[in-house]
């Protein structure tokens, strides 16, 4: 393991998220705060789910491998559900915050819209989730060792990095979808997000058969991306105009607070 592995995996996992942060979030203090608060909410959900898992493990026989694996799977599923529950709680908090911001603003409209908050909250969740999954691995990648020397997969670091990247993207899109569903009372959108999350986490049970986990995750990410884009006001015309570098009418197809319709 070398510096090349370290930097490569870091940029694979966090490069897109970092650029999202730099270009869309870093300029606005309010968004940074929402990002950190989102990370905090994800952290709390992780804490609670680890508590449950810990209690379950302590109450069970540590030598029973199958049971431990089963408990871990249960822990994963429970954690996913708890994360989505905390996403809902965060949505509630942000709704209240918007009311506060509107009350305090001069012209009666909030400096940030719920859609932007949804995006930032998604990035916050994603970054924290990715960081917790990846940082210790990266620290180990700097040290000495050989990957897979005991017969495990040699692609461990690389696949972890790719998985982290896809998870960060997925959290971002799920944030947008989830908040949209909550805003417009479309419960099936919320259910879809929860199911997608369960599916992605479930697919990682196939690891180290990476084709079983990475491929479905990326497909789901593409689907979520398209869906989130459409929900945020994007359309095929916007995309074509963008790609052909034609002028866009301001407010078309971007997350500048255009109300969801």
């Amino acid at each position, binding site marked *: 393991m070398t510096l090349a592995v370290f930097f490569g995996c870091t940029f694979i996992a966090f490069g897109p998220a970092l650029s999202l942060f730099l270009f869309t979030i870093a300029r*606005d*203090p*309010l968004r*940074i*705060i929402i990002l*950190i*608060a989102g*990370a*905090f909410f994800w*952290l709390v959900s*992780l*804490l609670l*789910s*680890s*508590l449950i*898992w*810990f209690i379950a*493990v302590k109450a069970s026989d540590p030598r029973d491998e199958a049971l431990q*694996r089963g408990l*871990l*799977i249960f*822990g*994963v599923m429970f*954690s*996913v559900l708890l*994360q989505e529950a905390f996403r809902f709680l965060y949505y509630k908090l942000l709704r209240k915050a918007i009311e506060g911001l509107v009350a*305090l*603003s*001069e012209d009666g409209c909030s400096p940030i819209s719920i859609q932007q908050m949804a995006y930032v909250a998604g990035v916050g969740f994603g970054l*924290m*989730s990715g*960081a*917790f*999954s990846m*940082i*210790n*691995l990266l*620290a180990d990648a700097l040290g000495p060792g050989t990957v897979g020397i005991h017969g495990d997969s040699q692609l*461990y670091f690389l*696949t*972890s990095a790719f*998985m*982290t990247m896809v*998870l960060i993207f997925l959290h971002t899109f799920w944030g947008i979808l989830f908040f949209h569903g909550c805003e417009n009372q479309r419960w099936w959108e919320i259910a879809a997000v929860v199911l997608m999350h369960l599916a*992605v*986490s479930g697919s*990682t*049970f196939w*690891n*180290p058969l990476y084709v079983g986990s990475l491929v479905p995750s990326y497909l789901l990410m593409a689907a979520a991306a398209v869906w989130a884009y459409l929900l945020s006001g994007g359309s095929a015309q916007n995309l074509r105009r963008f790609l052909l570098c034609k002028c866009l009418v301001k407010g078309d197809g971007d997350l500048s607070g255009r109300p969801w319709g």
Partner: protein
Amino acid sequence: MTELSAHLPQFQHGQLTENFPDNHLSNTNDNSERRRHDNSERRRNDNPGSETNGQPQNNIQQVVEDEEEDEELTLKYGAKHVIMLFVPVTLCMVVVVATIKSVSFYTRKDGQLIYTPFTEETETIGQRALNSILNAAIMISVIIVMTILLVVLYKYRCYKVIHGWLIISSLLLLFFFSFIYLGEVFKTYNVAMDYITVALMIWNFGVVGMICIHWKGPLRLQQAYLIMISALMALVFIKYLPEWTAWLILAVISVYDLVAVLCPKGPLRMLVETAQERNETLFPALIYSSTMVWLVNMAEEDPEAQRKASKNSTYDKQANQPQNGDAEPDDGGFSQEWQQQRDNRIGPIESTPESRAAVQALPSNSQTSEDPEERGVKLGLGDFIFYSVLVGKASATASGDWNTTLACFVAILIGLCLTLLLLAIFKKALPALPISITFGLVFYFATDNLVQPFMDQLAFHQFYI
């Protein structure tokens, strides 16, 4: 400490509504007091370079005339100020964590300070717990004594003693501790270095630091120095405090902070109130300030504005020479040499009691454009230090390593955010330690003991949640 909330009369225009200075994140001052070595370091008197330190802002006590408007304004600018504090706190923590991870000196056990005489290498857990409780008790008593001593000194106007105390502490930090730090960094990276070069480097670093912190300097440089000395202090704490003692001290200090700043008889609150009665600033150099006020902008053709400007600098001068503060009321506390200086600079403008009264009668919201960017927030250095101690200890001793460090970091930032929100709502001195340290401690122990095994298992099987 405390936010320099000196109550200055409203003629200091432009800075009134910046009640942010009253950011009581001042409680750092008290923390500073607690600092064992450099008790005085934190108390810096008003320095002449108050402009660069944004002190005049501190001087303005928020005289809230229209509560609602002020409340809107302060909350509207709240997000920006939160970020203005996030960045230095993050930088300080990054420096501390980077040092802890790379320089092994600060994680090596080389004895303990005299303030924590009981060892933690005991046979039983009960004995260890008892020893750490005793250590924490001794440390807190030292801090309380120092704080009360400071309040007494301040009350009886022994400004020279305080000033000297502060100078000695900052000398110690800027020269001695940074010399040790530099030496350890060189040892870690096996850099060959001679004493002459080191002497030159430390000399320059220290002297520029003293000038920036106690006198005038570019704002960014001053901020950088304050961050560096906070990091150095935090590293000393991390090295010399044994584990359980450190956590206990953090917990007890948050409680003490809460009590000292909010209780009516708390030493810090008394300090703030005394400063307000005397219309003085309170140790501005011990506070990290995010902006400075450009008094130069206010000096216009208008003689009235010039009088105001002169009053501004006068006030600082006055605070700087407290021994003249009790001079005849006629000259407004301006010393002779100051008056000559002013006459040389802007011509003979004498401020008479009438002109002073006229200026004081001016409405607080002056007509000069109040640039919201100019409003700054202030956070005491003690807060920086204890936040960094928490995160540094987390990165040094946690089994969860980076996860725990990250969790503590986010927890502290959220605590700071909540504290600032409370500040915007209550608009009075608030302690910055309790919420952040509580969150930090909770997350440290929870992440280290609960989350880490879970994440370990997940990483082992390569499951993702």
